[in-house]
């Protein structure tokens, strides 16, 4: 039994089956990411005035990643075009670049993620907030490298929970905290490390998705996108290496596979083109 139009296009639609399939699949992907983008809008519009964070992400890294993905989109097309011109050798070079671009993207992305997980906001029992990168953490103390504008008085409205339990904050702890601050000289430039005893801490939390709704939607959107990048790269790699036998037996179908995976790859890039300004710039 042969299913018609697996390789050759059907006359009235002008498409082969897999191409119809991938476009339908991409339509549903649009709805998936569309729902998450809509959630972003609703959460942002619904946030209390002045609480939506800005400037948490590294724009230069995001820009590099954007360029990396655009580059990979170009090489996917060139790879497909090479196959159409019967140049398997060139196709191999282009698709290798595509896969490497995907890897580079994921490396940069994981670097950004690690930065967020190392970034702590520590609310002390005396109400001061230390915000910076974690240098060392034991069960007794945290050593933080504060960000330039990091140490600030916590706003009552922002952390209503932070103070409820600490009404009778023990004198000893407050005294230690004060001593610590003198010792480190208030670190106005942020150059020096701060050591904070666990006993002084009301709440310590890194900038993971649990920190606020912006980071929650940031991690969800970029995480889902990164999974798509990973999946797409694996498929392209599979077609490139173990699946390449098909080029000998059924070149037309093989070329179609490149086209299909390429369409998916363009979609993944396109999502990033929206993600970058929405999450990094706006």
């Amino acid at each position, binding site marked *: *039994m*042969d*299913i*018609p*139009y697996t390789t050759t296009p*059907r006359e009235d*639609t002008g*498409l*082969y*089956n*897999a191409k*119809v*399939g991938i476009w*339908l*699949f991409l*339509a*549903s*992907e649009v*709805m*998936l*990411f*569309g*729902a*998450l983008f*809509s*959630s972003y809008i*609703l*959460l942002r519009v*619904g*946030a*209390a005035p002045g*609480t939506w964070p800005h400037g948490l992400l590294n724009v230069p890294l995001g820009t590099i990643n954007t360029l990396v993905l655009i580059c990979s989109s170009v090489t996917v097309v060139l790879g497909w075009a090479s196959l159409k011109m019967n140049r398997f050798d060139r196709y191999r070079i282009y698709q290798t670049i595509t896969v490497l671009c995907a890897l580079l993207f994921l490396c940069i992305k994981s670097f950004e993620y690690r930065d967020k997980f190392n970034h702590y906001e520590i609310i002390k029992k005396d109400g001061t907030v230390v915000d910076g990168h974690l240098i060392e953490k034991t069960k007794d103390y945290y050593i933080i490298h504060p960000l330039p504008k990091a140490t600030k008085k916590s706003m009552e409205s922002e952390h*209503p*929970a932070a103070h*409820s339990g600490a009404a009778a904050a023990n004198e000893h702890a407050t005294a230690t905290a004060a001593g610590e601050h003198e010792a480190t000289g208030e670190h106005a430039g942020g150059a020096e490390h701060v050591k904070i005893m666990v006993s002084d801490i009301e709440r310590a939390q890194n900038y*993971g*998705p*649990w*920190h*606020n*709704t912006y980071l*929650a*939607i940031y991690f*969800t959107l970029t995480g*889902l996108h990164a999974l798509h990048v990973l999946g797409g790269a694996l498929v392209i790699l599979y077609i490139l290496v173990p699946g390449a036998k098909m080029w000998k037996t059924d070149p037309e179908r093989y070329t179609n596979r490149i086209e299909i995976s390429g369409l998916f790859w363009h979609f993944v890039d396109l999502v990033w083109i929206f993600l970058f300004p929405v999450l990094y710039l706006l």
Partner: protein
Amino acid sequence: MEHSTHTHHAGAHDDHHHHEELGFWQKYIFSTDHKVIGIQYGITSLLFLLFGFSLMMVMRWQLAYPGSPIPLVGGLLEKIMGPLASGGVMSSDLYNMFGAMHGTIMVFLGIVPLAFAAFGNYVVPLQIGAPDMAFPRINMASYWVYFLGGVVMLVSFIIPGGPAQAGWTSYSPLASIIPTNGQLYWVIGMVFLITSSLLGAVNFLATIIQLRAPGMTWMRLPFFVWAQFVTGFLLLLAFPPLEAAALMQFMDKGLGTSFFLPTGLMVSGKMAAISGGGSPLLWQHLFWFLAHPEVYVLVLPAMGIVAEVITNNIRKPLWGYKALVYSVLTLGFLSFIVWAHHMYLTGMGTAISTFFQTTTIIISIPSVIILTVLFISLWGGSIRFNTQMLFCLAFLVMFGIGGLTGLPLGFSYADLFLHDTYYVIAHFHYLVAPGTIFALYAGIYYWFPKMTGRMMSDFWGKVHFWTSLIFMNLIFQPMFAQGMAGMLRRMYDGAVNYSAATAANAGVNGVLSEAIIYSNRTISMAAWMLALAQIPFIINVFWSIKNGRKAGSDNPWDSTTLEWQAPTPPPHGNFAVVPVVYRGPYEYSVPGHPRDFSPQNMPEPVSRKA
């Protein structure tokens, strides 16, 4: 699985043209044949329907006789659920769990897989003259992902703390703050089910677009194919937002994010340790953006089956085929912009409510056109009242009741009163239970001879029909009264606390009369009788596979559509020769033709050409 094995023994011997012999596992379990997958879907989803119905039968005991030990299954429940059913009495938590899982199982594991995946898989490729689905292996994956989703949902019953209990709608924050893990299982199960529907939808749409036989133009498609086509789009585009929402609820529950959890959320009198800033309304929007089109996913395939069966049994062309097609397309489109009529009471604002009231009332127009077309088609037909036709005729009336009682719910002012009462339960059950499920029964009686080569017993079919019809109405008709009296839908004691008979309520206005409370018992009786009424059906199916009257031909109902022109049961690859289509789907009693039905692949008779 037992069933599919039997079914295909009959066919295995006469498919000579198909050479490669597949082993048992590839043929019946990990099959890529759309017909086997259709039957797998059918059996699994029928079992889930039975299971979901059983949950409700247990709940009906608690409603009728609150606080008394459940007979027959009480001990078993205590063994499985532990303290949730101590002494065989249903606890309020267990009631909530069964309620949530009844809805989830009926909708996502029962009706959708049966209506869309089972019938669609079996019938659509045959009706369009295709050898199989466009992507057979994706088709198989779709079934097994569905199966896994079902397993996850079932496993959640035996984990400590029991399954999800926040209703089938799983509204956050409630769903996120319940301390047990049932909700996590629910969300993971849903992700599997959504993925399965996605794979299925892509496959169906690609198949209908690409694999239509030569001559099978769009306006020659049987209406069932059109209905599945629109359903496919609904699944394709409406399900992903729920997948996104499920992902977010998973993160709220598992990772401590606050997508749906507002600032200042108090749990058990304490401030929740969350960042806050989330929006409970967001969940409701995302959920209903799926769940309203979902209603049409439940209904459209049923309408498709009804159109097939009715035209086959009136022996004349369907009246208004084009009106039907354009109505179903309109319905599909409009179903995406009515979702917030489920949310009038959320305080989303009168302007938004007005918009959704307007679209909700507009969507009733194509629905009415579809029913009207089917009603008018009956006019002047010489109707054969076989079992499937009775089910379809009942569908028209029952669906009509369900639809008309929905109108008051579409207006926000009336909905203020009726929202979350038994009126709503009665309304949507009229659409889905004596509506869709009746149509699905009709489909089973109608296509059974094609699947097995044997007929189901018409007598026992009619017994099944009349008893089901009576008990369905005895169940749901009193619920309208209960709802209009103000009885809320999620009360685990059957609203006894609001009864006029309670001493504490003496002299209080607005309490429920004894008749309203008492009808809980009659409803429950009817529900249990409905279960008994299904026994003839179950026996009929299994008995007829081996012992039913032989169908005699490939086309025992004298039908015009292509599935009846294929061998019985169709072998792997379906048609010996690719069929060529010469005419529309419902050419019955065409003057000058040799018989009262002209199959779609029958060329124009020579005499007429001359």
